[in-house]
């Protein structure tokens, strides 16, 4: 795909044939050293990459860290007590709460919740590493030796705009900025001439529907439906009155004649390539998401045989097939509708029991499947969410939005397995060790993909230090 907002960009990217890149990658060749003069990305990584592809699993609404990856016995000890009445009262020290940037001042949600709420599930040590993972996630727990769990995430938007923030690094009030997937797409060339390189699945919430923003719509994810009969918009003829396949072929031949007459027109060349890609894409995509050749055992690993896991499992199985075929970045949003299905302001136990049951088995299946096929080393799987949930109770049995400390997990693609990094305090309120803002996750992923965000940024769009983030080095393999 070619963004030609500026000619240099266009010429630069067009110069590199997609298939040539695969061999470049294999050789470990990378883009030349920084010269101080900005040049548009040429599709090659800036450094030798560890990961080839990313599967970005985003749980909309805010997963409770306290019921998944971050056990807090003190919560049970003081359950029902106000925080101020416990030895941990300093967590609500106003100085420590200044991190929050409030979007909606009188919002019913995103407030301090003062009465501690006991953990709504139990934790068990899992795997050889013995890392505790909650009973809500038994299958992911069994794969914990593949995972690096970061328990010290923080963000600043106490509203669900934090979903956008987790993707772009910027608060809802700051405007619209490219998402991580768009940066990867902008920075890296294609690994498969037949498929779009940046794909999204699942329901995207209204504040988070686009990716490219100032990088241009060419860097938006292509929305994909896991339906071989109708995988994407305009993927098949909307009217039968014309033999569109035939017109497609004729158009291509006419455009080729045009190119023979004017071989030096670079745009024409790009258009032909894009038509050819379109033609191949509409054929390749249904095949890529056709599971008929997957064994029953594989399908069961992803939970395709169970109604509760089937939808998400299909997206994950499709992801593995797309990764196998060289797709760079697959972004899956789980839990559409409203602010996100995980938004357990009430009945946290019921909510997380139900939602975890939908994703736990498929994610574990994905990791196991990638591993047995030797793909996990080059595929980075990320389990993320916009924020955690309050240690205090909201209503009688819910938890509110919590930005001061929460967890994400990563696996494969150059990340250590079976490690925990960072920590929250005794009640899971503040990240206190190795705190990481969301762009640290971006920096880590870009680093593993061999990209340097400072060399990607556009000269007219100077980014801030915090936009670039810092690589979370201790979890690198």
């Amino acid at each position, binding site marked *: 795909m070619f963004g030609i907002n500026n000619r240099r960009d266009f010429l630069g990217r067009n110069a590199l044939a997609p298939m040539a890149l695969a061999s470049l990658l294999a050789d470990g060749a990378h883009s030349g050293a920084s010269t101080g003069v900005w040049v548009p990305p040429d599709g090659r990584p800036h450094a030798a990459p560890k990961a080839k592809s990313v599967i970005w699993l985003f749980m909309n609404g805010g997963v409770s860290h306290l019921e998944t990856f971050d056990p807090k016995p003190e919560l049970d000890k003081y359950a029902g007590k106000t925080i101020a009445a416990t030895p941990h009262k300093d967590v609500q020290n106003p100085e420590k709460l200044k991190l929050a940037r409030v979007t909606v001042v009188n919002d019913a949600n995103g407030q301090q919740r003062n009465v501690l709420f006991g953990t709504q599930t139990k934790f068990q040590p899992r795997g050889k590493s013995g890392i505790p993972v909650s009973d809500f996630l038994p299958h992911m727990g069994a794969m914990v030796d593949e995972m690096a769990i970061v328990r010290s995430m923080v963000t600043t938007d106490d509203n669900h705009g934090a979903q956008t923030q987790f993707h772009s690094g910027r608060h809802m009030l700051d*405007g619209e900025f490219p998402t991580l997937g768009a940066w990867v797409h902008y920075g890296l060339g294609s690994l498969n001439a037949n498929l779009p390189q940046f794909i999204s699945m699942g329901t995207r919430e209204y504040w988070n529907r686009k990716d490219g*923003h100032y990088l241009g719509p060419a860097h938006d994810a292509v929305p994909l439906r896991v339906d071989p009969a109708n995988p994407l918009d305009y993927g098949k003829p909307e009217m039968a009155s014309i033999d569109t396949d035939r017109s497609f072929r004729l158009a291509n031949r006419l455009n080729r004649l045009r190119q023979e007459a004017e071989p030096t027109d670079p745009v024409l060349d790009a258009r032909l390539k894009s038509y050819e890609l379109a033609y191949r894409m509409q054929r390749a995509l249904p095949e890529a998401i056709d599971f008929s050749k997957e064994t029953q055992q594989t399908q069961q690993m992803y939970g395709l045989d169970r109604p509760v896991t089937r939808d998400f499992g299909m997206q994950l199985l499709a992801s593995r097939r797309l990764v196998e075929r060289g797709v760079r970045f697959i972004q899956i949003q789980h839990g559409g509708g409203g602010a996100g299905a995980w938004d357990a302001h009430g009945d946290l136990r019921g909510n997380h029991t139900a939602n975890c049951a939908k994703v736990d088995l498929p994610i574990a299946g994905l990791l196991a499947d990638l591993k047995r096929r030797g793909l996990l080393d080059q595929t980075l799987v990320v389990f993320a969410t916009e924020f955690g949930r309050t240690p205090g109770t909201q209503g009688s049995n819910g938890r509110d939005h919590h930005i001061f400390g929460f967890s994400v997990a990563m696996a494969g693609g150059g990340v250590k397995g079976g490690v925990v990094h960072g920590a929250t305090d005794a009640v899971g309120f503040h990240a206190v060790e190795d705190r990481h803002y969301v762009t640290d996750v971006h920096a880590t992923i870009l680093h593993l993909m061999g990209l340097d965000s400072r060399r990607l940024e556009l000269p007219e769009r100077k980014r801030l230090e915090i936009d670039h983030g810092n690589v979370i080095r201790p979890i690198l393999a």
Partner: protein
Amino acid sequence: MPPIALALLALLPGVDYLTEVKPLMATRCVACHGALQQKGGLRLDTVARMRIGGDSGPAIVAGKPSESPLWQRVAGHGAGRRMPPKGEGEDVNLAEQMRLSEWIAAGAPAPSKETEDPDPRDHWAFRKPKRATPAEATANPIDAWIAKRWKEQGLVPRPQADRLTLLRRLYLDLTGLPPSMTDIERFLADNAPDATSREVEKLLASPAHAERWARHFMDIWRYSDWWGLGAEVRNSQKNIWHWRDWIIESVEKNVPYDEMVRQMLAADELYPSDASKLRATGFLARQYFLFNRTTWMDETVEHTSKAFLGLTANCAKCHDHKYDPIRADDYYRLRAVFEPYQVRYDVPSGTTDPMAGFPRVFDCNLNAVTHKHIRGDESRPDTRRAMDAGPPVFLNFAKVEGKPVALPAEAHAPETRADVLEAYLKEAEVALVAARKVASEAEAQVAHSRKQPSATSSEAAKPLLVEPFDNLDSARWKPMGAGMWKPLGQALAQTAKIDGRAWLRLANPIPADFEAVLRFRITGGEPYRSVGISFDAAEGRDTMVYMSANTGEPKLQIAWQRNGQYVYPNETKQQRAVPLNTPIELKIRVAGKSVEALVDGKPGASATLPDRQAGALELVTFTATAEFDHFEIRPLPVGYSPAGKSSGRMTLAQAEANQKWAHAEVAAREAEPATLQARFQARLQEVKGTAAQAQSAAREASRLESLLAVIKARAALAKASRDVAVDGDSKKPAVDAAVKALAAAEKASASPGVGYTRLVASSKSPESNMEKPESRAKPFPATSTGRRSALAQWITHKDNPLAARVIVNHIWNRHFGQPLVPTVFDYGRKGTPPTHPELLDTLAVELMEHGWDLRYLHRLIVTSRAYQLDSSTLQPVEQQKDPENKSLWRFPSRRLESQVVRDALLVLANKLDTTRGGASIPVNDEASRRRSLYFVHSHNDHNRFLAQFDDAGVQECYRRSESIVPQQSLALIHGKLASETSETVRQLLDPAGTVPRDVFIRSAFKLMLARSPSPVELDLCNSELAEDNSRARAGLVLALVNHHDFITVR
């Protein structure tokens, strides 16, 4: 320095100042210590300056890095503050520190002739444009400067484009629509020498031109329809399309550019009584943001600067600009210009509903203070100092000061407009006529009942269904949606906090006419917290009667859904308090198409439905948690008649009670006009009259209003008595309340005073989600600060170096597909200098000298030789010397913008609906054939087809992206629009199926691509049509829709 670093130093080769030290200074130090600013008296842009140093002595001591303040500061050694300061730039890393140290150690060698950075105020864009004299003059001044570049670079330009290519280029460029076959034939037959210029004039004068170029301005001025969450307006404003229509009309009338800018920024100060011009302030209304005034102001400052001045003032929000002489103070001075403004809607002539009008701005908070935010942090305002309002100080070509502007009454008190009173009186008249009609029906009813006294009394009908909700009876109710239903013993709770609907569907059918009572409490949720009864529910349709405990607009509403779309009429709504956690009784009565809703026994809202179709009954929550206490369904009360209409089944007592109420209503309506007149007069005298006149008018208004209140209280009592007669004694409490209310009204009318209610002629948009009703209702100031008109005068001042250059560049970019200044919104020192500086300046001067006449500029550009060149790349020498065509040796071909792709398909198929203006079309209205600029354009809504072709960004779009992605091909090959167009074009070219194949192919090429097929193309198409039929011919046209030459302006 640590020993290990020193050891490493020895291994490094000599440091090159120019490639290693100077760039480091330039990126980290020079913004504060250079030509732009000399903090501490220090400049670091040359070695000589470093040696001289600043207030605290030399910055470097040659040979001694550890004694050099420069190195100490960047390395964080010594007592001084580490540089660059936090928040002002990245730390100098260890490797850079070592290189710097080594360079100093080596004696800080300097190049022999190092020049200092020039004064930023002398930057080309900050100096007035001047017309230069070309060495070789040409008829069109553009061509002299273009030819100069050719000559300098030894380039030979392409020849003139052929006539048909040029015609298509002109049509697409000037109107956004390709020429029809008639246009083509007519032009090709016209061999007069002025044929092209006549065509240009015709196109410039066409309505299509106004729509085409309006869309360009909508890009630059970031047009957006409103968006938010659900019905809550969070960004931009409702009815903002009036601004879009103003843009179209302004282009059509060729309003001078400077005047357009002035109207957009300050029509409310410059033309306070001119509704047509006030629409222009949509530019500022669009910046609206509900949640955060700083974000709102930031966008206003940023985009006013970028759009009109090509300045990135936004970079000076947190600190002084790093490249341009814009101080952070300047940023907040610009903000101060806009600080007082807010948005409101005034009633348009002939209505009393402000929301039927358009959003316009006005200075609302004259004393609003702007404080600088320390490091751009809004939680840290520098309250020691109030910022004054004005443009950036360094652009001091003219002093324009904002002087307060006195506003006419109709502008600050629209309720004093004569047409507003007229509309109110007309409305009162209509209501009176209706009331009289009801009264005469009621009289007829009495007569009827006298003749045929009904046997039945007013006994309450027996319930058809009673649901005490002591558990969830799954045989009776089917839970739907994502709700969680929990029986509480005496009530049933919906506990899931979901963003959507959760409801119970009744399994049993119910009669078409019925009464239903629901007792419930709303316990939480966000944001609407709606609970109510839905009936006639089926896929995509139902009628809902519900209560919303929404913080923004609590209400009782009757709404209905048809084909999946809800309508929420204002007339079927009652704004009222809806308390949380409080028992509410909602009763609905459905009789035919009539629906009445009563809350706690009091009439709330009523509606007449457009139609009815049987469906299910449902109890609904929408983004609400709730507890249902009780529900029952009964037949309508005997003799029930909706809204006073006679049902023919009333008892005499009922009919008389009903008649009494109807007469009381007539009396109230009769008293209305005089009261309206008095209220109007009172406000008019308050605004325009003497104090004595004002007081006496207020007294009269107060008197009439209090009398009307008595008459209305009597009507309310009559209504309550009638309800008792019809519904039975359960309505007694309402009578008691009405009696008390009447007594109170009578008491008040005995001593009326001077208080009265103004007519409502405006609706102010909430200043924030926190604004209280009293603040929303505060009167509008009678003066405006004049700050915005001063800024507008300053921007459009003839000595402003930026404004003309910026718009000329935008116009040029849209004609040629490439701008003269590539950084179209940054003319500062970080921007890219113009490819043709003299040309840019000449056009800027030309534009200003011709009264900012944009049509003059269009004409000048499209009649230049440069514009009329062929676009082929087939010149190897030029292609090699200037592959990016910066010198314009050929016309730069470009892809059609998204709107043009769709509009072109429609117009070629002869299906374009040329209806102009009006409300934006929903994005999913695929049946609409109107021009694409009329679709809703917002952050939330994207038309599926337009989105494939780089539709304008909503946040900003100073320049369209031009991507080539496979989805575009798929949309053009598979999309319905492309297929339909191809079939219609086939019919147009070959209506009877008799046109010879060869001729058909040639015509199709001519119409779709504006050229003839080459022999080999002809052969290919002929062989494609070997099996020749209409389907194959349409297929050929579709292939041409997908031809590079179709989607390209050549």
